[in-house]
């Protein structure tokens, strides 16, 4: 699932339509859009790091972000000297001077973003009056999103995409909603390509049959410690390509399972271990 945070409704709109997202009718504190197949969810946070941070936490907790399958994506406008869409590799919080680093493992060049399209962004708490550093981008949300998300989301599952809409306070004051919408729409195609690329990395980790594990623990009259040992044996069987289900079935047919006491369970647990090693 892709989790998207946009600060402004205008920025969100350029993704809502092409992704066919529908407004979530559930009474919620933030404007939220959801794909019918639940492959994508978008929240409109409102401008500013604190608003973005709160909305990110809401989004991740309500929809249950999964570390091995999901991505968090921030798409929004920023100030900068040169127009374009940029992938962010460093986030600086202007108020605290703290720095944050999303991992840059994925090659997004097939989506139209190469290494030269990467920049650092400074998250400010007011609209910037001028661009102090010509290589730097200036936004108002990235550090809030990163800090809130880092509790849930690994750094390689966070992607920050920023498009330059203006060059600071003077231009920002002149920026009309139509101009901002046009700017967001221009880059939406690339963002959609990035999302498609990232979807390919959503591979769930294989897990063992939890129901079989629970039943076996019951069959063994397992204590807490024995249950931990059994869980580790299930994990080992999975990683070493051994058929635990078949082994347990055979033991049942031989009348070794279920047992009637913890003491008997320990003996059978040891037998399972011997089979696997």
């Amino acid at each position: 699932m892709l989790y998207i945070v946009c600060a402004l409704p205008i920025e969100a709109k350029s993704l809502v339509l092409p992704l066919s997202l529908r407004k979530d009718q559930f009474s919620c504190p933030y404007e939220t859009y959801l794909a019918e197949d639940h492959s994508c969810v978008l929240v409109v946070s409102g401008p500013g790091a604190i608003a973005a941070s709160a909305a990110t936490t809401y989004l991740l907790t309500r929809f249950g972000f999964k570390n091995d399958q999901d991505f968090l994506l921030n798409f929004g406008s920023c100030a900068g000297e040169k127009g374009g869409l940029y992938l962010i590799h460093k986030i600086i919080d202007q108020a605290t001077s703290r720095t944050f680093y999303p991992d840059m493992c994925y090659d997004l060049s097939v989506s139209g973003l190469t290494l030269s399209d990467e920049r650092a962004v400074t998250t400010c708490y007011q609209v910037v009056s001028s661009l102090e550093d010509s290589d730097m981008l200036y936004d108002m949300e990235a550090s809030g999103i990163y800090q809130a998300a880092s509790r849930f989301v690994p750094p390689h599952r966070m992607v920050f995409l920023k498009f330059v809409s203006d060059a600071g306070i003077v231009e920002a004051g002149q920026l009309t909603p139509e101009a901002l919408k046009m700017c967001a729409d221009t880059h939406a195609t690339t963002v959609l390509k990035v999302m498609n690329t990232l979807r390919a990395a959503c591979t769930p980790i294989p897990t063992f049959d939890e129901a079989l594990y629970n039943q076996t623990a019951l069959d063994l009259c397992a204590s807490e410690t024995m249950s931990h040992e059994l869980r580790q044996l299930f994990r080992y069987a999975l990683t070493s390509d051994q058929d635990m289900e078949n082994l347990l079935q055979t033991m049942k047919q031989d009348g070794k399972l279920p047992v009637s006491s913890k003491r008997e369970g320990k003996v059978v647990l040891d037998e399972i271990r011997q089979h696997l090693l």
Partner: protein
Amino acid sequence: MKSDNISYNFPFSHIYVEKQAADHPLTKEILSRFKKSVVIPIDHYKDVFNRTHQDFELQKTAPALILAKNEGASVFAGSPVCQDFGNDHFYYTSCARGCIFNCEYCFLRGMYGSGNVVIFVNLEDIFTEVDMMCRQHHMYLCVSYDTDLIALESLTGFVSKWSSFTESHDDLTIEIRTKSFRKDIYDICKPCPRTIFAYTLSPQEVIDRYEQKTASLSDRLEAAAYAISKGFPVRLCFDPVIYFRGWQDAYAALIHEVAEKIDLSKVKDVSVGSFRIPAEYMKPLRKSFPSSSICQFPYENRNGVFQYPEAQQREMENTLVTLLQSLISKDRIYRAEF
């Protein structure tokens, strides 16, 4: 978790440079070799290297390089889990953290949680510290525990520098452990009886399955034989011995191949030790590598160290020691004891 359905950036496509290391000559030299990489200034290497929830496996596919200055103490007492080879004052030092190889059983996975590589460019400061310590007593120092220095030699030149430094310090013995195939190092460095090159040897099945990106067994043996021929002290490490179905035949074949390709009478010594890892590293390992049979093996926790069940461990180590004793004198075989 790494996925095969997506492309990854090339290794060291991103180089993080600590501000205080930016002007160091080695930093400049390394950066000059990576013209296509993105250089990102950072305040402290831990801001990147020590982040929470990093995906080690993914980072190994597209590792970033971090250039930093090591501040504070950089020489530490050797771990009881590691072998001291009879030396009283056993230490290790980190001039780099993280390895370009990717061994599934490596303690670095549990220790640091990052698949990126840190190079501490200020080797001269480590030399100053070691120089002071050598004045107090003889030191046995492992310099390649937290990385594979030979594999990084073309970037850092650290092996050559350590070799020269050791030669000029009579009270220092160093061990440089490797799984690399590089032989050119032995044309560059001068042999010194106190600079030991230690080759970790495993059956090719283990290398294929668990030691990704490392040199093949035959390449390691070729490099070790070349080092011996040039007069360098060479240690062979059958450590860690890894359990898998058919390990007996695989390790017997390994020792047979070693005996064929290496003149064992000229080897300084050999070590034998089955896989073990401090308990505090195993918990993050199991969480981070749910698909690894080495991490998920049901080890026994004995004295705070995860190890194979005692009988199994004894059988594995005894088998290897017995095989080796027919080829090399007993006093040159060291066993892991803790």
